[in-house]
């Protein structure tokens, strides 16, 4: 019942400006797929190509194998949730949700139960006769979602649907969206620039930069094994350190401090300079002198379950997260030794463009 979406080498130009140049990806049936990237990287552009608001200059988009390049939007059967909701201001909640069914020439007798069911699903059945101006942002968001899914679209598209909500509502609504999508099993493409949101809702996500896909994978893999330095710094926090591959090719040398690794791939040539990305929780911090990176605590923040340390190592600033167990906090000014968790850290080539971590070994 659910459909696949094949995006095959598509190109988008605005006049002379090429925004997307030969991008390909595949969305599986029923999948919650997210396009994640910084503002202006072409996410909206791609989404609008899928639904047909933007022309496609080259390449193909296929839904369940059918090429849809020249199919007009109203014949694509795709639902969309807009950033500003785009609720019709002259219609009540009920009329907004019923609109798409009316366009499909359904009788009122058929429309009423379907609308009622969806309104209940998104928990706004009490608001059915309100006008949009009488709704809060979160409620409008629910109307927009209900309106998009009531037509039983083959594909559900969402463009930064949560960006106009306050932080708390954002978390609440993303769970609502995720649960409903899961329940209905509609193939969904979701756009956001918020990496935390992307990690929270997606089955898989594509990290984009400047119109180019950097990595497509599950949230966990993208976080733990970023494909390149951009992904590792865009998603989550990363301390980026300079180093080089050890002489035997089985570890990284941070200028005296060696970390032995067993998961480097064949691109890791002995003695090649590399960039190493270490997440704050992938460091072990210790006051005792010993083998490791030497740094000074500049500042620390107690956050209940964790303690964040802000450190200085030469002219580099590092951030380390430690579990707040019953050990005492390390005071500012203290000399510490950092050791990296060898099986967690990521190593990239000198340009940061390619990961030197071997592909297998998923937990």
């Amino acid at each position: 019942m659910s459909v696949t979406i094949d995006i095959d080498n598509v190109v988008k130009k605005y006049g002379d400006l090429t925004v997307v140049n030969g991008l390909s990806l595949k969305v599986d049936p029923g999948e919650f797929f997210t396009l994640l990237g910084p503002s202006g990287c072409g996410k909206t552009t791609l989404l609008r190509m899928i639904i047909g608001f933007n022309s496609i200059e080259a390449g193909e988009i296929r839904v369940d194998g059918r090429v849809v390049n020249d199919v007009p939007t109203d014949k694509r059967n795709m639902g969309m949730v807009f950033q500003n909701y785009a609720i019709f201001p002259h219609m009540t909640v009920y009329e907004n949700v019923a609109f798409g069914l009316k366009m499909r020439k359904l009788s009122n007798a058929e429309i009423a139960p379907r609308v009622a069911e969806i309104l209940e699903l998104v928990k706004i059945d009490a608001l059915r006769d309100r006008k949009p101006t009488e709704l809060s942002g979160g409620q409008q968001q629910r109307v927009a979602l209900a309106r998009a899914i009531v037509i039983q679209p083959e594909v559900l598209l969402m463009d930064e649907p949560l960006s106009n909500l306050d932080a708390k509502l954002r978390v609440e609504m993303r769970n609502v969206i995720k649960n409903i999508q899961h329940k209905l099993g509609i193939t969904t493409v979701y756009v956001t620039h918020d990496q935390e949101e992307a990690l929270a809702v997606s089955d898989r996500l594509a990290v984009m930069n400047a119109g180019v896909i950097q990595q497509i994978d599950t949230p966990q893999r993208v976080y733990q094994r970023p494909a390149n330095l951009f992904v590792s710094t865009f998603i989550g926090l990363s301390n980026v350190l300079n180093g080089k591959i050890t002489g035997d090719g089985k570890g990284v040398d941070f200028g005296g401090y060696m970390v032995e690794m067993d998961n480097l791939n064949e691109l890791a040539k002995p003695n090649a300079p590399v960039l190493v990305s270490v997440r704050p929780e992938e460091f072990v911090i210790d006051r005792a002198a010993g083998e490791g990176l030497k740094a000074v605590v500049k500042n620390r923040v107690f956050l209940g379950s964790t303690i964040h340390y802000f450190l200085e190592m030469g002219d580099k600033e590092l951030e380390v997260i430690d579990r707040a167990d019953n050990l005492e906090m390390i005071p500012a000014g203290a000399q510490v030794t950092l050791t990296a968790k060898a099986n967690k850290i990521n190593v990239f080539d000198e340009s940061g463009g390619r990961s030197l971590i071997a592909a297998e070994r998923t937990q």
Partner: protein
Amino acid sequence: MHEPGKKKVDGWFALGLLLTALFLVFVLYPLLLILYKSVLDPASGGTTTANFVKFFSRKYYWITLWNSVKVTTCSTFIAVLLGLPMAYVLRNVKIRGLSVINILIVISYLSPPFIGAYAWVQMLGRNGLITNIFNKLFGIQFAGIYGFAGIVLVFSLQSFPLVYMYVSGALKNLDNSLNEAARSLGCSTFQSVWRVVTPLILPTLLASALLVFMRVFSDFGTPMLIGEGYRTFPVLIYTQFMGEVSTDSHFAAALCVIVIGITLALFFLQGLLARRWSYSMSALRPMEAKKYSGLSNFLAHLFVLSVVALAIIPQCTVIFSSFLETKGGHVYTGNFSLENYANTLLAKDNNAIVNTYLFGVAAIALVVVMGVLISYLSTRKKSPLTATLDTMTMMPYIIPGSVLGISFLYAFNAPPLILANTPLIMIIALSLRRMPYTIRSSTAIISQISPSIEEAAISFGASERTTFLKITLPMMLPGVLAGAIMSWITIISELSSSIILYTSRTRTLTVAIYAEVIRSNFGNAAAYSTVLTVTSVLSLLLFYKLSGKREISI
């Protein structure tokens, strides 16, 4: 130094009082006088409803009202049918020469309607250019468009620009996501225009339709020139008041009261509807004009260019014929000459052009100064007094110009205030008619200036007067000046109150054109019209240059 506790006289309050007094004298008093006159029985000195009974009981009279309703409804409807798609197409399709098209549309709107009437008579009248060609080509006896069809033609073409400008402005504020949402829910392009765009711009459409309706309903120049036997209500008023035979000022007053009643009712009806359906819209992603190709591109261009051509034809005809040599004023010899200009511009005792400029400038000065002060009072110094003032300033908006003129003659033709036959009465009438528009636009400008800016100035020790003069006024000035240019263009094209109030010493261009047309001196009329058009075009270009905008609001 003022003693503490002793309240000094508030300058703003005094100003409010003064302005209110002025409007009482120049708006309310003449209107009440008309009302009084309409029910006054001159014989007994008591009140009577005889004038109203006379109107509604004789078909000869009431048919004019019915005619007016028919003509106005038809013209308004056609104006909407032209203006709405024009606005939508031009917001949606990239049309070549858009800025020229916009200027042409504005020009066709700003010229007085009766010039259109007389130009169309030149082409499609009994002896018109196109009529003659057609009759010769097809061997038919087309007698020219007069009466109902002629009036509707002129009014529709003259009024659609107003609908166009209003709707175009509303479309600019319409978020295109709404359109896209409709498309994603299964609407074709046409369905989304019909079900989403149209309902949302309906309040604006209604407002513009009402303006068109009131303008058309109260215009008498057009039916006078092209109506022939088809008498409309304003024509009746004019002939009752000014006519050579049987003028009856009490009956004319009753007619004025009827008009005011109708326009007032429409005004409130529109306000009611607009309040019910107003949506605050702001476009996150406004519509973008896209390049189309093939047939749709061709059709869009064809539609836009045909409508613009139809609208601008009268102006072109007039300008062209101003360079034609005539015999006896109305028979064209087929040669070109500047004779018409010599006859008009160089004629001795000709004060029409100078008057137009003088009165125009004086009226503008009055409108701008009072408009700014009144809008400041009614937004920043809200009180019952300023609310009353605000309401009174809106009255000329719904009172037809000829009615205003007639009421002025009634009110200021006798002591204590004798103004009739003076330039002052023309200037006051001109500025009052424009006042509602200026106040509205100034109010919009003021409400965009945050009061905290003024409060900041006052907190630094500036007096309220200094704050207004040094802070608020300079911030308002660019917008106000741009508005003043538009006011200037509308003021110099005004006919309906001037035609009632003018004397030979206070003739203006529009009055002169009208008089020449009535006398069949088409050559002179064309020359005057061309002067008027050139002035308008130059002013419009100045407006564009100063405001840096491509959008016009009337």
